[in-house]
């Protein structure tokens, strides 16, 4: 589902966010990236209806939802602290939204949602006994169980250790392929944004610095802030090669030399992304 923000303004005691407008195309994976306090979570809260706005409008598809309360918007949200209901077990957590929406075939839908997040058989588990990654996945299952129009993820990888973060990144990719949901990811980590999204919104102190595809953000940063943000990344154009019947992409890049003698460059296999 397409989401449109039109001149959204929010007022806080200490800072303001003025006239934010952008569109989230249907079926896209959009990341909102920026340092803490840049307003990215606020935008997420505006989309799902939790944030009181001073002015502006929000459209889901063509429908104006500005006056619709969060419980009627059908936006799935995964909050930063995962916010599982500690007094309910896994099944009851995932079923919560379905019950609220008086959905039919609740248990089938819960099982299906748990299957999507690879947690089959976890229904009866107490949420306090789950690991960090499992908790996140239950939170995601809870958000997607009632088939939301859009899935909003607020720093879903925060607080996970490095190995788990990598796993969860692949999981989110997989989730997107499985569900073809429109997804919005809020993160301070440009790595995640590059790895996962096809559109990136860079924010800084309540303003949008740039919107574009990862390649655009890389290759033509529009401001010093964005340039600073992506300066540690290397984008190289590659050429397709076939070797022993397998396709490869080959690329050349150079790094400033240090010292004398033999040089080595190390790369992490998991931390790259191929764009077309």
């Amino acid at each position, binding site marked *: 589902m397409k989401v449109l923000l039109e001149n959204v303004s929010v007022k806080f005691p200490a800072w303001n966010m003025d006239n934010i407008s952008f569109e989230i195309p249907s079926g896209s994976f959009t990341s909102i990236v920026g340092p803490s306090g840049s307003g990215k979570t606020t935008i997420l*809260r505006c989309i*799902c*209806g*939790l*944030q*009181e*706005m001073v002015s502006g409008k929000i459209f889901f598809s063509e429908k104006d939802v*500005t*006056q*619709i*309360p*969060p*419980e*009627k*918007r*059908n*936006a*799935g*949200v995964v*909050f*930063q*602290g*995962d*916010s*599982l*209901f*500690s*007094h309910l077990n896994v099944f009851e957590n995932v079923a*919560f*939204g379905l019950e*609220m*929406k008086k959905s039919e075939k609740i248990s089938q839908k819960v099982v299906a949602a748990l299957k999507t997040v690879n947690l089959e058989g976890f229904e009866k588990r107490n949420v306090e006994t789950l690991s960090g990654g499992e908790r996140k996945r239950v*939170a995601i299952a*809870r*958000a997607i169980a*009632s088939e939301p129009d859009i899935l909003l993820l607020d720093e879903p990888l925060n607080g996970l250790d490095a190995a788990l973060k990598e796993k969860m990144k692949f999981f989110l990719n997989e989730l997107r392929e499985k569900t073809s949901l429109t997804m919005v990811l809020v993160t301070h980590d440009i790595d995640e944004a590059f790895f996962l999204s096809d559109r990136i919104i860079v924010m800084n102190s309540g303003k949008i610095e740039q919107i574009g595809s990862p390649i655009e953000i890389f290759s033509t940063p529009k401001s010093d802030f964005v340039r600073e943000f992506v300066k540690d990344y290397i984008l190289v154009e590659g050429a397709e090669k076939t070797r022993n019947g397998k396709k490869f992409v080959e690329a050349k890049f150079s790094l400033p030399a240090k010292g004398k003698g033999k040089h080595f460059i190390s790369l992490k296999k998991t931390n790259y992304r191929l764009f077309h």
Partner: protein
Amino acid sequence: MDFRVGKNNYLRLSLIAFFTAFFLFFFFYPLAIVLLKSISLNQNSFSDFISILVENKTLIWNSFYQASISTIFSLLVGIPAAYLIARKDFPGKKIVKAISLVPFVFPSVLVVLAFVILLGNNGWVNSILKNLFGFHIQFLYGFLGIILAHVFFNFPIVMRFVSSSWENLDVKMKESAKTLGANNFDVFLRITLPQLLPSIIASASLVFIFCFTSFAIITTLGGLQFSTLEVEIYRQILRNLDFATGAFFALFQFIVLSIIASLYFYFSKKHSVSQKSNREPLSKFNFSSLRGIAEFSFLIFIIVIALLPIFAIAVFAFFDPSTGDFTLRAFEKIFSVSNVTLFETNAITAVLLSLFLAFFAALVSSFLGLIASLKQTNVPFVNFFASCSIAVSVITLAFGYYLGFGSGQLLIIAIGHSILAFPFAFRIINNALLQVDSESIDSAKTLGADDVSVFIKIQFPRIKKALIASMAFAFAISLGELGLVLVLYDGIFATMPVYIYRLISTYDLFAAGAMGFLLFAFSFIAFYAIEFFSNDAEVF
């Protein structure tokens, strides 16, 4: 910062209207009447007010003096007690910690009763002294009696506040100070004490307020010549029928209490305890050192002074001093049909009335506390309502009801008890609701839960226990409340505390012991419920 739509739904608006109307009508209106009455004193200028104050300087001096001395001694007992709880590991610690509820749930009239039994001229201590040494000490009916009772009653407040911040001091700061060359004394003076100061000042101001407005202890243990503002307000209303003077004293007291109450609120905010992970490990008593023995003796001292009054009342209820046996005669006496006319009311009615008021206050104050605490209602000025009530003494409120609604109305007394219990109910429920993280609530909303469903499905299951604790707290407060009923009962409704108070005044300690035991038993049930259902941090 709540959501935009559904914010002004009718349910929310009617809850806010109910809450605000309740407080305006049953708190601010009576208060306003009292304050307006004070103007009718025919004193037109500021210097006239000053001259009334000068005329009554002994009274004012007495109020400040006894409250200050009581506070100082409560600190002297309470701070070492806080140290024991925060730093020592010993069996039964939970029970010692539970003592801190005493000032809130133990009826003041029972303190009076216990003190008369123990320290009266013919009390246990003096009987022993007379038999062994042939002399006795006049503990009660004077300044000493007031101070002893106030310290017994209030040191637990200091203990509770100070120990909770002492427990949570970051041990790393202490360790850093030591690596920088500080010895134990330096550490205490430069690191520990400054961090405890907010909780010390907060608890001291609360104790000061409680002692300043103390009623039963002053009138019975203070003797005739010793009076304070609170007692004088009562006398002016009910004995002299001089409402204007009574109201003037109430106004002056209100100003004093407001200043002290702001101190309390300022420092209790700073005191708010954050749970830190770097707690210092607890140590056991070291009986081979003088310090360890002193610490242990002090612990025993606290336990004895906390339990002795309860023990005294329990024994006295069943012990007939004229025959020297254990009997149920005291109970027979108060409940016998022939004794119906002992006072204006009989014992059974007193018990039933007390229970009615306590249940009413439990339900109403907890309901008000819930409305005030819920995010969904977001009642304006809630904290203002809650803080105001601490600066208004019970007798002042009773005076306002007396002038505004007349005496002899049971429902007004019940509402008054609900108002008195409200700050406690609000605090317990609010703290419990704050534990429910806002993300859970936001999640529930995005999953389709409206305000009511959020309450039923997310908040209520997590605050069930706190609600019970809050009701138990309000129950106990209403059960032990004396001043309001004394002013308003108009000879028709005597509650258990009034009944006991009257019996003590006529020196019928045997019968007072029986009723005291019953009152204690009910209070103890409430006390146990609070202990069982509340977290440590929730109450104060």
